[in-house]
């Protein structure tokens, strides 16, 4: 596979598919049995000719799933750790301001919340102004609103520093918000690739239909209808559905409900 410079690639797929392994191989933390990795014309890995550029020499930033912040160093020291001798330390202060942790810059990681630690991990990966930023499910431990904030931050950094980015994620929303390209892995092989729309928007979706995707939580049968509680887009909704749909609406089943919309029936509610 190849990635366009400056673009954002999402790597997704079921657990155990090899997403994290792929990322770690690109980082040089793991060496595949057979492989070839080239970056900007520079050979990073070629198992045939036994070339393997160590992680330290690949100009990358890596954000780990467990953040991997150094417990014995403060926020500022964590960031400054990546600085090479002789480089200007201004980038550290710049990043501290970008992640809005100026007040907490002298605290140690254990004194920060999950979201704050995540911001530090992100900033730390950018101190060396890498060309390639790799993120391993960085936002999976955060709640929904935190995730949104951090996605904004990632986009802001991407615009500011212009790196190429590969992010491993399960979150569909994340893929749509951040990625230009997606590859889906299964059992170590790429089974789908394309833009998020190409992969996830079903072809039969004609313009004026509203389709709700959800998961059935409970289903109770009444004489003339079934009452279904479903999880739709992070909200729990109650739906009254005709009896004949009962067999499709067992708890745990995913469903799609299509509603044809009449443009005339739609009004804008001004908040």
């Amino acid at each position: 596979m190849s990635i366009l410079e400056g673009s954002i690639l999402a790597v997704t797929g079921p657990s155990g598919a090899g997403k994290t392994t792929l990322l770690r191989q690109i980082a040089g933390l793991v060496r595949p049995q057979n492989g070839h990795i080239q970056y900007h014309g520079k050979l990073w890995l070629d198992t045939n000719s036994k070339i393997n550029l160590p992680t330290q020499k690949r100009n990358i930033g890596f954000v780990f799933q467990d953040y991997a912040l150094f417990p014995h160093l403060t926020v500022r020291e964590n960031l400054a750790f990546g600085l090479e001798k002789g480089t200007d330390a201004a980038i550290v202060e710049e990043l501290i301001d970008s992640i809005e942790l100026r007040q907490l810059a002298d605290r140690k990681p254990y004194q920060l919340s999950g979201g704050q630690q995540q911001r530090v991990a992100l900033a730390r990966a950018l101190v060396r102004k890498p060309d390639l930023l790799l993120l391993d499910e960085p936002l999976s431990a955060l709640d929904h609103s935190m995730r949104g904030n951090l996605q904004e931050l990632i986009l802001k950094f991407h615009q500011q520093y212009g790196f190429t980015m590969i992010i491993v994620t399960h979150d569909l929303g994340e893929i749509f918000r951040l990625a230009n390209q997606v590859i889906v892995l299964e059992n170590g092989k790429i089974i789908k690739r394309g833009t998020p729309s190409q992969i996830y928007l079903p072809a039969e979706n004609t313009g004026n239909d509203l389709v709700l995707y959800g998961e059935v939580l409970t289903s109770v049968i009444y004489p003339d209808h079934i009452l279904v509680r479903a999880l739709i887009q992070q909200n729990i909704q109650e739906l009254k559905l005709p009896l004949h749909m009962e067999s499709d609406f067992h708890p745990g089943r995913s469903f799609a409900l299509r509603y044809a919309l009449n443009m005339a029936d739609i009004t804008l509610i001004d908040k």
Partner: protein
Amino acid sequence: MDWQPLLLTFKLASITSIILLVVSLPLAYWLAFGKFKARGIIEAIIGMPLVLPPSVIGFYLLLAFSPSYWFGAWIENLIGLRIVFSFTGLVIASVIYSLPFMVYPLRAGLQSLPLSLQEASFTMGKGRFETFYKILLPNCKPAILTAFVLTFAHTVGEFGVVLMIGGNIPGVTKVASVAIYDEVEALNYTVANQYALVLFAITFAILLIVYSINNRLLRVRQPA
């Protein structure tokens, strides 16, 4: 009371522990993270002093370093020192005898750190040595302390090895543990008791101080 045996004991324990700390750090790192096939054999060798009777170690060291054996003669020619029945011999024997007490806690400490810490350091351009020194070691302080204390205490308690290779020479190799034995054999229970009590009190004090430091180190690491 003759303080010589006690002074010798603590001198031996200190020197042994410091030498072992220096030697064991790279060894523990290698055991913790290295990939090599002879791992089982190396681990068995390091662990031997845990199970082997001290007198066996002492006996073989005595034989090896004896000037009538080719190795001992060669060493004597090389450094001009007679190893057997000397303080140097005690140090060598103690280093071998206490090795697992330093290596194993250090290795455990290193292995308890998440691998991602090292990997994060690598992605920031730092090599293995710098990572070890700046990231791994500072986060292993309790393990280092434990290893040091165990080694120190273990060396203080040595008897069999020390007797074998040291030869019980007053002022040179007669350490406290041997002196106590001597005094008991000679029925000088009062003197034996003096040595024993002092040993007890000093080692207890050392442990107390060390574990208070350890607790303070651990408390600081509690999440907010």
